[in-house]
């Protein structure tokens, strides 16, 4: 009879249960420490992530259905207006691209003159956020591109306003992207105005990056724009990252610190671009097969 079996809890029972509680608590704490410090459970996590992918897809399906339903019943006139607007935007960016094309050529010639070898070609892959909310404290988003589309861990992810983060875990049709704001994330940046190179650390808050270890006499002002320096080898150089919001020079400390606001709308992004960097090959025209090892060796921006 199930009713009588657990009607009363004896003292011995309680002691045993407390002991088991302690064991589980200890196990949980050890797991968390391993996960936080050494990332020893990374492989298990990656495996579990790809196993869990179908569940994510099932959970997402009703929302995908709702979105497609909404798309189907949208007003014809609204769509026409939207198309006109997009066409205008396209023409504008085409014009801008023409100018840029010339600059690219000029730049290439200059680089040749300078004998600069570091030149990274990149391809873009558009991605969209899946309708899945991950825990806000995990600083990760879930995108609808995966191994099948050529996404690999460590690829840079941007949106129209700036850098978003990099790919963390990859499954067949989806991947998670670790945001700039994660406390574990560090990104080599350059101050656009002065050319000063430093590192932008995630602060754990979605609207803040931290620059630490700045010299006290640093030439940095609120409003300065930070761009990627390309030093990690994962991000192409020159992508906008953040805008400096505040510079502090605490007396008695050895270094100045600054806070910056990410330019990408990390909290409300939907459309993303994954950048596939091709590592600088030994010969032009030779496409590296994976290009992964070379990138990994010089990377500083491990998530």
């Amino acid at each position, binding site marked *: 009879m199930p009713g009588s079996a657990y009607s009363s809890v004896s003292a011995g029972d309680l002691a045993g249960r407390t002991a088991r509680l302690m064991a589980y608590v200890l196990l*949980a704490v050890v797991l968390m420490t391993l996960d936080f410090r050494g990332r020893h459970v990374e492989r298990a996590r990656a495996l579990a992530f790809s196993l*869990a992918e179908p569940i994510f897809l099932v*959970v997402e399906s009703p929302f995908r259905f709702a979105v497609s339903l909404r798309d189907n019943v949208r007003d014809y006139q609204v769509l026409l207006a939207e198309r006109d607007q997009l066409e205008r935007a396209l023409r504008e960016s085409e014009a801008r691209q023409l100018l840029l094309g010339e600059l690219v050529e000029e730049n290439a010639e200059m680089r040749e003159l300078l004998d600069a070898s570091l030149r990274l070609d990149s391809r873009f892959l558009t991605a969209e956020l899946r309708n899945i*909310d991950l825990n806000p*404290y*995990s600083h990760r988003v879930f995108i609808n591109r995966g191994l099948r589309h050529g996404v690999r861990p460590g690829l840079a992810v941007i949106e129209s306003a700036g850098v978003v983060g990099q790919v963390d875990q990859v499954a067949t049709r989806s991947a998670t992207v670790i945001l700039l704001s994660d406390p574990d994330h560090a990104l080599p940046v350059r101050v656009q105005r002065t050319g000063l190179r430093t590192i932008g650390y995630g602060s754990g808050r979605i609207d803040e990056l931290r620059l630490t270890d700045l010299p006290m006499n640093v030439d940095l002002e609120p409003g300065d724009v930070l761009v990627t320096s390309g030093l990690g080898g994962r991000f192409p150089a020159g992508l906008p990252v953040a805008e400096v919001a505040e510079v502090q020079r605490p007396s008695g400390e050895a270094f100045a610190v600054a806070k910056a606001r990410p330019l990408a709308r990390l909290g409300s992004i939907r459309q993303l671009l994954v950048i596939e960097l091709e590592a600088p090959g030994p010969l032009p025209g030779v496409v590296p097969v994976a290009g992964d090892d070379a990138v990994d060796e010089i990377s500083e921006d491990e998530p």
Partner: protein
Amino acid sequence: MSGRNQGSSLLLLTLALGFALTLMPLPTVVEPARPYWVAMILVYWNLETGRLRFLGQAFVLGLLLDLMTGTLLGQHALGLVILVFLLERFRNRIRFFPPWQQAMAVFVLLLNERIIQLWVILLGGHGWPVWTWWLAPVIAMLLWPWLFLLIDALRRRQRLLRS
């Protein structure tokens, strides 16, 4: 023994629904106040049928949640194990509470769970959560009687269908 097996499918179904509700997209403003669905469903089955009473079960559920929501491995597991332990301590009392008093008990359990989570979040260097984050146990308390009645009704229907 047949009484134990009966409703296994319903248990799995409610847990699956709990997971789906956990992953369901919500606007950013109300997102932190999302009630802890899996814990509420766990408490229901524990109180009403005496299932999911083992600490190990809570631990595994918590690990699953960690993997799903991308938190530190063990964060949800820690909270759920402590919750099940406390629930077991006071189970015989809570079981015979009227629904509103039971809701209060659920509130206290979930508030305690939030405090444990806060500890992990602060240790992880994430800073203080927004104030709406503390609304989650309150919302869970308000939802509790309805969830209770819903699963009760489902169980009764299933029993009728079986017989």
